[in-house]
């Protein structure tokens, strides 16, 4: 509601996350503007996937706060105290945030089209008719119009991931989270998924992408974040971060991946 929130889609302030005694996030501060494409890089175990999962409350944070579109994720603030949101309220928040997983997580007992229409019908209460029409448009958009009636087991990894993107888009999200969307794919299938993501970016979708695809980061990202050991080490536009990294850790990491 505050004026500062107007152009900020995601704001993370001092986010801490522990799993038992293991501290995975040690104070993450980040801001993602509306229509911005942010790529998060970092070695495995740096906390980048965990941070992404905190944005839609798949993980509860232990300290700090995250707001999406000006609303605190998972809580309601009254005075100085935070109140946990009810399951239905958390679900409503999540419905507006699309997420794409490393392992696709398509529903194997449903066709591609049913995967795409399930949530709009079940969560948004759209009519089956309308959802199917919209679902076919989305499958067409990711280049899979002819696979509407195929089951996930009959699709290649790249096709499955594109269905997963269409499934997320069907909820008309204001923000899309990508958790290593191409890491489980055969190399020759990576391109088709990245192409769909580039298309989304040029349509003005706000995206936070955890990936190892530095080429995608250079080409599409507005800003690149390097995370290590639970903190943001460095954030810069891609040409700066890749061309002239400021921190020793960033340099070492880029030397290994480039």
């Amino acid at each position, binding site marked *: 509601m505050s004026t500062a929130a107007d152009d900020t889609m995601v704001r993370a302030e001092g986010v801490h996350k522990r799993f038992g005694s293991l501290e995975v996030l040690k104070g993450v501060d980040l801001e993602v503007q509306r229509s911005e494409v942010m790529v998060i890089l970092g070695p495995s175990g740096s906390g980048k996937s965990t941070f992404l999962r905190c944005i839609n409350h798949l993980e509860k944070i232990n300290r700090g706060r995250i707001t999406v579109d000006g609303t605190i994720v998972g809580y309601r603030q009254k005075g100085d105290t935070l109140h946990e949101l009810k399951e239905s309220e958390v679900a*409503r928040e999540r419905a507006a*945030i699309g997420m794409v997983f490393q392992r696709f997580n398509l529903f*194997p007992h449903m066709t591609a089209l049913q995967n795409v229409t399930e*949530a709009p019908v079940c*969560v948004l209460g759209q009519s089956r008719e309308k959802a199917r029409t919209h679902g076919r448009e989305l499958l067409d958009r990711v280049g899979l119009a002819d696979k509407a009636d195929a089951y996930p087991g009959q699709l290649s990894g790249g096709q499955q991931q594109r269905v997963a993107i269409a499934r997320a888009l069907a909820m008309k999200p204001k923000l899309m989270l990508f958790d290593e969307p191409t890491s489980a794919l055969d190399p020759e299938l990576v391109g088709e998924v990245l192409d769909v993501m580039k298309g989304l970016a040029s349509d003005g979708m706000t995206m936070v992408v955890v990936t190892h695809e530095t080429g995608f980061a250079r080409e599409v990202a507005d800003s690149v974040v390097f995370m290590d050991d639970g903190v943001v080490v460095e954030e810069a536009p891609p040409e700066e971060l890749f061309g002239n990294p400021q921190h020793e850790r960033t340099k070492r990491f880029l030397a290994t991946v480039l």
Partner: protein
Amino acid sequence: MTTGDSLSSAPAPDAGADIKAVPVRRPGRILAAILIAVLAAAAISSIVQNPRFQWGTVGEFLFAPTVVSGALKTLELTAISMVVGIFLGIVLAIMRLSPNPLVAGASGFYIWLFRGTPVLVQILFWSFIAALYPDISVGIPFTGVEFFSVKANDIFLPFVAAVLALGLNEGAYMAEIVRAGFVSVDQGQEEAAKALGMRRMQTIRRIILPQAMRVIIPPTGNEVISMLKTTSLVAFVAFPDLLYAVTVIYSQNFKQIPLLIVASIWYLFFTTILSIGQYFIERHYGRGTAAAGPQPLMARVWQLVFTTRHSDLAEKKGKPPATAPGEEPPERHGL
């Protein structure tokens, strides 16, 4: 001298033709077949020639009205108890996996209690419940407010007691079967549903349960067959099921053996029907994942007997992972 030598010197077999080799001899098989044939012949001749089996009496009572009505009661009891058990099992499994520790604990306690005592004891308990609670009333606890009250003996008729005992007991076993099914579904499925904004119950109903069915169905089939036979325990509380019907008859004519054979024939008939059903249901849910192990003899028999008819059906239905026309068959995918 060695086969290797003879092979290397022999001309190479025609590369274009399939291998035609002399099969390995299996003398053990022939021996076993002879042994089984001899034993079977001995058993059959003793069964046929021993007059004390009284096959005439078996034929006389096989379709006696009380026996047939007992058999139907057994079926009815099996069906109703299984419906109660399956419903309860799903509820208990959902409770057991609830994030609320109290709810999960209550389900755990139930399973512990009902799995931990013999079902016969439970049947007897329910039939004697009137001794424990002579009057059953519905009201607000601890306030003395009472809406209505009945005598326990009026509602806990043998049938109700039997269904309660068998159904509640079955619920505990089904809960573990359903839970195993839920746990077998990949964690990512629940996350994907959550991320789409689906609630827990929507996720269970639409995403988890349909996938868990593949794991749940086969043991449930076993439970049905097991239940059919377990219902015979209700003869202890004078419920007129199949076993009770034959005991009543043989307590009058003292022809215990032929009447027990009558009951056995009925039980075998029902379990055979159920096994056939189970075979096809399992095949339906196991498509694409079924391990290609050796099939049990009876399964092969059902396949031989029913395959032609069933494949006609399958073609007409052409449901799920059926291959889309003009496409290669899907590889075995780990759904």
